[in-house]
């Protein structure tokens, strides 16, 4: 009988231990930070760099603010946390507090993502040179954050006082629809198509429509004029708009 009591006791212990609550696994590693520049036409996608041309923003006379995302890995914290940004001087041509100013590098309490503003200035020097400036900001480890993904440990910002040629112009839909890049041509695209930004190059119906508008405009402009007097770009090269996407695109 005494033996039965032992067995009953052991069985009870086993039963009580059978279904203990198991804690949900959580992110146990260090907090990390990474940067991301959302896609221009699809913000869910990421791009390598943010390219800003002042002529696309005629209301930004002296300065403007551009943004990139700082994202954290790990849990949101109950307090504000500063992350460390380091200017990659080897890959940067812009001068701090002259050409740009970083306003903020704080991840607020309770959030996983923060848009980080960078104020850029349209200086006389920028206008005179006509060359774009480049700023590369690297994420650097500090007491609050280690560096996250290698791919996203930097933010590259490029801006200029002229239209900057998009990296996806040559050989892609922009070139197919609008021909070779020039300052005057981009301005023509904006004026004729009554838009403020270059269109999404993946929207082929819209690109085709703009292509048709431009072809008709150039044909009208050149009508009755000698070749020498036809529409030219800033390099004195005749502006040519190819036919894009026939049949009937546009």
């Amino acid at each position: 009988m005494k033996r039965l009591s032992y067995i009953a006791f052991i069985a009870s212990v086993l039963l009580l231990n059978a279904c203990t609550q198991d804690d949900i696994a959580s992110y146990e590693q260090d907090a990390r930070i990474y940067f991301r520049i959302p896609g221009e036409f699809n913000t869910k996608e990421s791009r390598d760099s943010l390219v800003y041309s002042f002529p696309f923003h005629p209301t930004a006379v002296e300065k403007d603010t551009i943004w990139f995302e700082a994202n954290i890995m790990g849990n949101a914290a109950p307090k504000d946390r500063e992350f460390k940004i380091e200017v990659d001087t080897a890959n940067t041509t812009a001068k701090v507090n002259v050409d740009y100013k970083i306003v903020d590098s704080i991840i607020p309490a309770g959030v996983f993502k923060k848009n980080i503003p960078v104020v850029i200035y349209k200086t006389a020097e920028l206008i005179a040179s006509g060359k774009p400036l480049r700023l590369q900001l690297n994420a650097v480890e500090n007491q609050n954050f280690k560096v996250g993904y290698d791919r996203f440990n930097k933010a590259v910002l490029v801006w200029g006082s002229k239209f900057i040629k998009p990296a996806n112009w040559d050989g892609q839909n922009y070139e197919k629809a609008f021909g070779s890049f020039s300052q005057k041509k981009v301005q023509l695209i904006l004026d004729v198509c009554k838009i403020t930004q270059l269109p999404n190059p993946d929207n082929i119906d819209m690109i085709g429509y703009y292509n048709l508008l431009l072809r008709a405009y150039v044909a009208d402009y050149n009508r009755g004029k000698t070749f020498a007097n036809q529409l030219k770009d800033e390099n004195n090269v005749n502006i040519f708009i190819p036919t894009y996407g026939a049949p009937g695109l546009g």
Partner: protein
Amino acid sequence: MKVFNSIILLCLTALVFSACQKEIGGDYKDLNTTFVDTSKYAKQIVARQNEVYSISPSFIEGVDPSKLTYEWRLTKVEYTADPVTGRYIDTVLSTEQNFSKKIPFSPGSYVLRLHVFDPSNGNIAQIINTPFTVSSYALQGLMLLHGDVNSCDVSILVNNRVNTVVPATADSIQKNIFSIINGKKIEGEARAVAFNNHGASGARSKVYVLTSNGGYRTEFGGLKMEDPYNNLFSAAPSTANFQAYGTAGTNEYLINNGALYYQGQTQPAIFKPFGSQCYLPSNISPGTYTATPYFAMDIDNVSPINALMVGVFYDSNSRRFLYSKNDNTIGTFTGTAPAGGFALSTVGKWMVYGEQGNSPTQLSPYFSRYFYCVMSDLNFTGGISAKAGTRKVYISDLGRLPDPNFPTDVTKSMSLTSNLRGVAVKDISAATDIDNAKYFAFGNKGNVMYYATNDKIYLSNDYQTSNLYYDILANYSGNVITSMQVFKVKGHPKDGQLLYVALYNSATQSSTLLEIAINGINGTMSGTPKAYTGISGKISAMNYKQF
């Protein structure tokens, strides 16, 4: 201790003996999977879109239907997922014993799948698959766009002359379909109705209903509104003034306020919007044009030299014919005019009417495509207008023609842009009532030209003289003609053999449609016209609905 050991031993012994008990097999029943009597079940079903379809299955003797459960599924017969939704259609329509449901699905081929389950026997099921065809709510036939200055509607003439699948007993007008489906009439005065066959097996076809207010592109099965007029364009025209619409193959033409729009609908799943108006290249002056609402699209764009061509229209601004290409540019005709003909580049006339018609040469590889245009001299008094007593028929051949420079080489076709295509000018100015003619219709089997005043129809077989063909005043007093059309549908058994005339009675504010059987070769009437009455308002446009 002894008692304890005995209990343990007893339990173990029992477990050992029961561990490998011989399986003696289940107590199987001879289960029945036939509940519905398929011999009394439809082998094929045709239901009409947006109407309720009912079917009550019969059961074999001894089956209690109340103890069974049911599932009626409709599955689309298709080999790829819907390109828009990315899904296949497989929908449970009902779980009732007797099926009675509205069928909202687009016209096409489906399978109605009846699953009958027996819950008392592990849900064993009988499955019956039946081919199920959803036909258009708006039936195949001759569409009529009718109404007043404020609004209009679409009705369809359905008989076995125009609709080859309905029985001879079917002979009526399916009235006011647009307003029944959409709960309202089409805003504006009727101008054009057209069917656009699009997508695999026509599954994405559209019906265009176009009015002075613009109108709509509609789904072809039930004429459900899809796109208002402005949405047909990438950017709405600054002046919305619809004038003409046409389609040939994948090519679409639209004329709005004198501007020609072209779109090549090469993607089966979607419709690309019209972009900006077609334009003249910089080497052509003047660079502006005003398109008249008549154009030819059935042209030679097959031969390599003309592969980029889309259509030909008349520019009332510079009074010349122009052609358009599939890159949305417009070009001029060039070269010398043929003897007895005319130069398309320098017509200099007022265009009254244009329609493609009888094309006499159909011998491969030279298929002619005749474009008949009624033209007048101009009267410059008090603005530009057509001059009385000067009407002529200008006939151009836009088909595949041998290049006159290589008359013996059948591989060489003449460029569409040649003025040599202006093959003939026929002077019809002396024909009776020709100056009063408001409506025209050209046949396609022989030299057949009808023209009509308010109340008389004339027939010309030489485009110069005419005879009174039918007197509306004598036969339908109080009515005036509002529209006239030869039924021309390529490949249709009645192609070119029916003449439709719309009459309007202002006292009753309703229309009568006359169907006149004609000899396509010479245009003569066979029998007496058949009249369809009671169509509200004025019929201003007609066109064939293919399915």
